[in-house]
């Protein structure tokens, strides 16, 4: 039996969007990034997870995933940013099922809007149980204090049956999900004392004039 310590050396296949350069990349067979054209792909929004992500140069990404979409984990540290993790699938562009994650504010905003469209369209009878096909139809330059970044234009173009290669499961490991502390609902709250009184303004014994 192997020991469950150390790094496995296995890097999950991924697709990523560089918001600074408006470019898409996948992991090349030799390792490293390989640029691809704007892709069209299946996106497993049903199983998307949100949380706190930290990407640091030359280091494995760190993540603390929210226990659920409506309950955010506490921020682990100042340089973690809110982001998402989701499975994307395209034999043509990605070579199969890959992980798509980011803490870019512009990409996250695009995915948030996409999720709203997913919820709306997914409620229709003809789309139930299906997976949306998403196309990157372009991008918009977004100017902020960091200069110009890009927000991809992501659109649901159709709905298809879930392919066998795309498992209906969480894209994150259970170990990445925040478990610290019990839910607030199960913890008895503590009484908080009234705030200390503010000192009254000093009154003058005699008028100044």
């Amino acid at each position, binding site marked *: 039996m192997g020991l469950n310590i150390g790094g496995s050396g296995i890097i999950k296949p991924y697709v990523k969007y560089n918001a600074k350069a408006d470019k898409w990349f996948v992991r090349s067979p030799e390792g490293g990034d390989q640029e691809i054209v704007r892709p069209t792909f299946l996106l497993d929004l049903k199983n998307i997870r949100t949380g706190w992500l930290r990407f640091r140069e030359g280091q494995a990404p760190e993540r603390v995933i929210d226990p659920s*979409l*409506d*309950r*955010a984990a*506490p921020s682990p540290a100042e340089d973690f940013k809110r982001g998402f993790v989701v499975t994307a699938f395209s034999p043509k562009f990605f070579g199969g099922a890959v992980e798509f994650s980011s803490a870019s504010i512009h990409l996250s905003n695009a995915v*948030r809007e996409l999720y*709203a469209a997913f*919820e*709306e369209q997914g*409620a229709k009878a003809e789309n139930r149980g299906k997976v949306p096909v998403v196309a990157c139809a372009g991008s918009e330059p977004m100017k902020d204090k960091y200069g110009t970044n890009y927000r991809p234009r992501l659109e649901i173009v159709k709905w298809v049956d879930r392919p066998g290669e795309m498992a209906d499961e969480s894209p994150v490991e259970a170990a990445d999900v925040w478990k610290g502390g019990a839910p*607030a*609902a199960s*913890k*008895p*709250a*503590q*009484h*908080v*004392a*009234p*705030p200390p*009184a*503010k000192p009254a303004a000093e009154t003058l014994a005699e008028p100044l004039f």
Partner: protein
Amino acid sequence: MNASPFDRHGIEHLSASSLNVWAAQPALWIMERLLGRRTPAGITAARGKAVEHGVHLGLSNPRLSIEECIDGAEREFIRQTALSADPRREEERKKLAGWVRGALAELRQYGTPDGYQEKIEVRLDDVAVPLVGYIDWRFSDHGLIVDLKTTERFPSQIGDAHGRQGAVYASAHGYFGMRFAYAKPAPGKTDPRQVTVYEMSGDDLRRHLAALRAIALSLGRFLAVSNDPRELAGLIVPDFDSFWWSEPAARAAGRDVFGF
């Protein structure tokens, strides 16, 4: 331009309490908010408003005696329940003094509020109409919003319904803290406290705002099914055993609307 489902039903705004009703008893929400069959506020709501009125008299004028504040609360209660035939009316009236006395003993320590019953409004992502609400008291000196709840027993924590309400109040006030003061009419036999105050954490605020957004989106999707409120009422079944339907007038209206 397509009107939102809320526009199509003449709904200009939502509130935390409205969304709480939708989440807990959709049939009651449809009856009251879509079909306009609102039932008068129950005796518990009347007592809450009356106690709040009496406490506010004492907070806004620190020199006012407790007895004058209790008088104010009783007058407000009589006004609120003038047409009520609820048999609990007199029993509740007798307990008003205890609630006012206990709440004032705690809340006068906060000083004089600089805001009372002020309207606030917040927007939730992707929800076409705003959420509105009215705060109990704002103590800007301390950066706090305080909401008073009358109760017979202390809750062990801020429940979801109150938490959602507090999340709306606090998010409309930037970084203000949000506290709920739970007041009992008398000290307990083993627990001498008459009031306990809980404060919401930042995580609570975010969690409840996310829940409100999810509930509002669900309501929007439901309203989009039809422009006919009667047709929507036909899709939902009420649970008359729930305490939400405890007022006899509500149950009578419910039977009329839902046919059983």
